[in-house]
């Protein structure tokens, strides 16, 4: 049986929900480890995805976005692969509470 496939470019920008049903942010980035020709996903970054979210990791982007009120200071969360439930790819859900998650740092991922 073919294993389930998800197209990442369609996951980008999808809203992620907490166990309570509250929206906690949108999928901004997918981090992976590449070793010996294999690419393995390690975590998902869930943040305040605005149209320009692919920019907000850089200070000028954040500053301007904040000027326009398009982003709240405080970034988002790092969600390890085993804590994001993708059984419904259109409605990713957290399997733990946001308190247990590491935050995306203010100045963006290093």
């Amino acid at each position, binding site marked *: 049986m073919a294993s389930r496939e998800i197209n990442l470019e369609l996951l980008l920008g999808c809203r992620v929900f907490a166990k309570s049903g509250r929206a906690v942010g949108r999928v901004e980035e997918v*981090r992976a480890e590449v070793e010996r020709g294999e690419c393995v996903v390690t975590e998902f970054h869930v943040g305040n995805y605005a149209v320009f979210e692919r920019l907000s990791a850089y200070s000028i982007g954040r500053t301007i976005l904040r000027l326009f009120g398009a982003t709240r200071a405080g970034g988002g969360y790092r969600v390890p692969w085993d804590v994001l439930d993708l059984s419904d790819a259109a409605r990713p859900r957290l399997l733990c509470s946001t308190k247990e998650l590491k935050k995306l740092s203010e100045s963006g991922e290093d």
Partner: protein
Amino acid sequence: MRVDLIRDVLDKQLVDRNDRKMGKVDGLVMQMREGEPPRIAFIEVSTITLARRLSMRLGKIVARLSAKLGGQRHAAPFRIAWSKLTLTGNDVTVGVDADETPTQDWQRWLKRNLIGRIPGA
């Protein structure tokens, strides 16, 4: 090596083993595995993938059109296995010849039937 897939791979220029441009990384196919972290199995290089990013319905329309114009080979997005890729700083290099892939089919058609027939090409 750590890679941010959206930032460093998606929409990046694809280059074949002869340094010829062969499109961009239009999509990334993530395979879910029981009890193991998901892996990126393929990248997709296709207008169908692009259309789908804008709207699912547009994707279906482009898929039908693509099949009609290009035959079965073009009915679904063209995929390249991750293992064939090398991430350089600037682009994503594929260890194949662009002409061996369906990505150049339409330009080859153009070359044969239109562009190539005009003097000076």
